[in-house]
């Protein structure tokens, strides 16, 4: 369970450009939730993920992981239980290392990274099987540098790598936004499969309303640092793209655009 309690976040505090993003923000993601988050630009979606993961600090409030306060915990320590995929496919892989080396690195997450062999040959077949399930032909390119792969291939790898070891939470930050429609579709299907297989508590920020409606067990809409729509369960299943599009237009008109 992930919780944000009474979060207050200001950007550029104490300057003329001071901007209040969250005044008293609360969110609870229950175990097994697959939450899709939509909202206009600047509504605080990515900031919320950054606060959860510890990439940015907050002025006030608590971040709880399974009831334990992790507000003061460093980002890298939180990542023991969190996997994260970014919008930019380059963020989740090492370009100058081979596919095999990248997979091996990710496979050792949670380990000590000592003087043992970096690449465990015995695990190669396992990696190839996982990569094979993507149908991108990556399983035959184990010694190819990741930098020479396409954005979609790299994003698929980033997703596989972030969920290779046992984790509890998956944070997806517009992870299909930089991909072409067909690849985006493939990555979404893969995401859904992994989340279900590993029973991960997932928060996915997306600008694709259709994905937000089709995938996940709960839907949030954010606007100006607040949650303006929060539906789950049966209501979520019945939801159509037009419904949230209508709501989306409402808040946009308020804004004057």
């Amino acid at each position: 369970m992930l919780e944000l309690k009474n979060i207050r976040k200001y950007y550029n505090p104490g300057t003329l450009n001071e901007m209040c993003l969250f005044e008293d923000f609360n969110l609870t993601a229950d175990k097994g939730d697959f939450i899709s988050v939509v909202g206009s630009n600047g509504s605080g979606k990515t900031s919320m993920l950054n606060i959860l993961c510890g990439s940015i600090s907050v002025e006030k409030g608590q971040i709880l992981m399974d009831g334990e306060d992790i507000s003061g915990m460093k980002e890298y320590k939180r990542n023991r239980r969190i996997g994260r995929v970014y919008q930019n496919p380059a963020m989740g892989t090492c370009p100058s290392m081979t596919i095999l080396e990248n997979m091996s690195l990710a496979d050792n997450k949670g380990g000590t990274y000592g003087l043992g062999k970096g690449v465990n040959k015995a695990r190669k077949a396992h990696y190839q099987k996982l990569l094979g399930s993507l149908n991108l032909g990556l399983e035959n390119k184990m010694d190819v540098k990741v930098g020479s792969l396409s954005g979609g291939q790299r994003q698929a790898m980033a997703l596989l790598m972030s969920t290779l070891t046992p984790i509890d939470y998956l944070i997806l930050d517009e992870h299909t936004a930089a991909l072409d429609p067909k690849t985006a579709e493939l990555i979404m299907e893969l995401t859904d499969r992994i989340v279900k297989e590993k029973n991960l508590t997932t928060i996915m920020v997306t600008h694709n309303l259709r994905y937000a409606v089709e995938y996940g067990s709960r839907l949030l809409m954010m606007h100006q640092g607040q949650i303006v729509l929060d539906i789950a369960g049966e209501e979520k299943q019945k939801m159509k793209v037009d419904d949230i599009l209508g709501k989306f237009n409402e808040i946009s008109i308020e804004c004057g655009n």
Partner: protein
Amino acid sequence: MAIFVTTLEQGLIYGILALGVYITYKILDFPDLTVDGSFPLGAAITATMIANGVNPYLTIPASFLAGAAAGVCTGLIHVKCKVRDLLSGIIMMTALWTINLRLAGTANVPIFGDESIFDNSWMNKVFGGGLASYKVLVVVLVIAVISKVLLDLYLKTKSGLLLRAVGDNANLVTSLAKDQGNVKILGLSIANGLVALAGSIFCQEQRVFEISSGTGAIVIGLASVIIGTSLFKNVRLVNTTTAVLIGSVIYKACVAAALKFFEPQDMKLITAVLFLIILIIGMDRKKKVKKNA
């Protein structure tokens, strides 16, 4: 023939230094100027130890450890005090000047009459007669190859993979639940350990410690790395660390050739011009200048 052997000797000694620079410049993407201080640091420790009658072979681990400690300091300044990479190196390089002077006592410590890793009763027995003139070259070659092989092996370990990852995509290291700062510090310590080791061997080959021997060491290291990596980029049989060693020998050969036509006081200008030519040919500058300027 003698000049050929000397060039090879010096090329390989500086090749060990270049292996260290390879770690910081190519793997960590960290322009580390500590090198100008850690090279003479190895030399200062070596000269002091030898002058005090310590077994010369102990200078090898001692100088490596001292260099590693200097690298850790640079890393701590950069990571913990959040000073930018170039400046962290400059701070350590400046501090090391005094430390080296204090260690050695004076700016110039001759160790002509003392035993060294090249010159002791055991070595003289093994390399008798006609082999004597190749003695230094063989020892240097052995140390350079051992350093290279150990570095290769290390880069294939889990820790080594993580080190390569931090220069490639530091964000991924955080994602893997590891502190990227600590990985950088580790890389800097190994790099400067190698540099100080080169300093130690250089001091014993020259039979003198000179405080200014480190001035411009980073340029030699960078030039060697760039020559090696760009020349052998597409040669599969030669891996990068071998390429760096060969690069260093080529660089030393270029300098030796240039000195045939110029006076020794032109040395620095020749170095600068050579380095510029190498950078232009290597075409490595675009990315680095953008990132580090």
